[in-house]
């Protein structure tokens, strides 16, 4: 039933609907994401994200590669935290083979994973305020991010694509030998001291960054109460990681999955109150601090010994299937590995965090103002390589 008066008002205020095209080449899309937005004045009626500009077909490629070759592929999915992407795959392969990596290798993996998390979160903390018009945090965050990338490079040889994991452990340094017990050359000389210095600097810049954000009226006005996502909505769309925790869910795969020795460390899992853009930003600041503390504790308590278990020269996994997931900086990254007993998988399902995180955008962007569009989708911290696979 519609009253005549209502009909008159809606007639008077009616604006013609337009289509606004954002991307695929837009500075705030972190790659090539295209948003087709139907807008009514300043309000968004409907958003249809168009993805696939960077689809590289990893699942198909994996079917013709051997297991060690796949590790090199996987760290290119999310290039911002490439190291963290390798972990669930090698752990899945190790569980199928029933190989246990030595404790020292597990600690090295943990340290590098947390460094990848810091580097990834710093990129977000640099670029997100930039999208909202604040340029200073960019320089603070990028300076310290470079220190962390230098540390990763000093161990693995690569800043973004380490390819450092081997099934059974981590790559032995040149000349170190797989099971060297006396001379450990797995971590470069001076690594511990460098790490301690870098972590102190990172912790200091976290405080500075927090000041820059918490004390910035404009940034608060643009992020507080904007893009509120309920925990139910997030879970139903598979939104994971810091984005899920910002909605008040205290859930971290580092606690529930035993893929790395996280049980040895006490760490706080921060949660947000409102699930808005501000909370999603602050989550990352807290997580960097926790990662720093974990790295410092890990280099104090790192066990000595071999860094790679005894594995056959040609890796063949027994027939079977396994799903392994891990907490990457962006959320749940997981691999469903189906082995038919060969040197490569019969099928590898790649579950990436950004894909699910972006899939919730059409729901969240319905009815918001155009300026909030950038604020909301920027706050999810996605990388298009991780969306498109």
């Amino acid at each position: 039933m519609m009253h005549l008066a209502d009909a008159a008002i809606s007639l008077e205020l009616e604006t013609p609907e337009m289509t606004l095209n954002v991307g695929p080449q837009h500075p705030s899309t972190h790659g090539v994401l295209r948003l087709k937005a139907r807008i009514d004045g300043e309000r968004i009626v409907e958003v249809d994200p168009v993805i696939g500009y960077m689809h590289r077909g990893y699942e198909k490629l994996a079917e013709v590669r051997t297991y060690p070759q796949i590790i090199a592929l996987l760290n290119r999915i999310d290039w911002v935290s490439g190291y963290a992407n390798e972990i669930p795959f090698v752990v899945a392969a190790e569980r199928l083979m029933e190989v246990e990596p030595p404790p020292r290798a597990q600690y090295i993996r943990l340290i590098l994973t947390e460094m990848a998390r810091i580097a990834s979160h710093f990129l977000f903390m640099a670029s997100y305020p930039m999208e909202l018009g604040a340029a200073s945090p960019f320089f603070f965050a990028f300076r310290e991010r470079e220190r962390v990338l230098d540390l990763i490079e000093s161990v693995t040889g690569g800043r973004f694509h380490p390819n450092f994991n081997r099934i059974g452990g981590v790559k032995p340094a040149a000349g170190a030998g797989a099971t060297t017990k006396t001379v450990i050359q797995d971590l470069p000389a001076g690594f511990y001291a460098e790490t301690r210095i870098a972590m102190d600097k990172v912790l200091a810049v976290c405080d500075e960054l927090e000041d820059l954000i918490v004390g910035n009226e404009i940034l608060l006005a643009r992020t507080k109460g904007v893009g509120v996502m309920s925990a139910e909505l997030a879970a139903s769309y598979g939104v994971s990681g810091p984005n899920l925790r910002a909605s008040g869910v205290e859930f971290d795969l580092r606690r529930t999955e035993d893929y790395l020795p996280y049980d040895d460390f006490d760490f706080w899992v921060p949660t947000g109150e409102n699930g808005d853009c501000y909370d999603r930003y602050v989550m990352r600041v807290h997580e960097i601090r926790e990662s720093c503390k974990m790295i410092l504790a890990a280099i104090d308590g790192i066990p000595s010994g071999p860094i790679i278990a005894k594995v056959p020269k040609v890796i063949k996994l027994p027939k079977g299937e396994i799903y392994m997931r891990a907490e990457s900086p962006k959320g749940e990254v997981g691999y469903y590995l189906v082995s038919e007993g060969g040197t490569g998988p019969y099928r590898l399902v790649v579950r990436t965090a950004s894909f699910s995180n972006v899939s919730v955008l059409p729901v969240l962007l319905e009815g918001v103002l155009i300026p909030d569009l950038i604020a909301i989708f920027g706050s999810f911290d996605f990388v298009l390589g991780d969306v498109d696979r």
Partner: protein
Amino acid sequence: MSDAQSESLSPHDDLFVYAEHVYDVVGFADPVAVRNRTVKAFVKRDRWVDALQKAKNDLGLVFFSWLSAIDWTNDVQVGDPPVGHVKERFEVLATVADITEGRRVTFTTDVPKDDARIDSLSKVYGGANWFERGAFEMFGIEFVGHPSLRKLYLPEGFEGNPMLKSFPLLSREIRPWPGSVDVEPMPEASS
């Protein structure tokens, strides 16, 4: 749980108990594999949405992790074929999890290739929307009741379903792998 393979797990294992719990609550989901914190449960195709609805409401598995499919066939264009004879079919898999304890269940069902259709989960889990579009373009499986079943990654006009085992990998066709540099045969496995 007659056909459950308890892969080197004792019946007292916590996960095994959970698998029985899944069987009791859902009623028609048979745990077929219990391993690495994952319970894999088989349901019939016509009860697919029912099972996932029960998992969400009664088991508390509110987190939609992923959905995908496997093309089971002995006649493959890419990779190595399965060891033994497999029944020609699509296996559709959906993994759901909770967001408290880290429990997860992978539901699986068989879809015949000559009638490749299954009910859509998008009304139960919003996240299924994009995953089903992905499985639709990559395998050609039709998800009945999906709000807008169209291509996700591939451009309009692309023909074929690239993840099918009958779909050749073009780059491999042009230049066989390993490349001409690796002329030596692969060494045999030695443990």
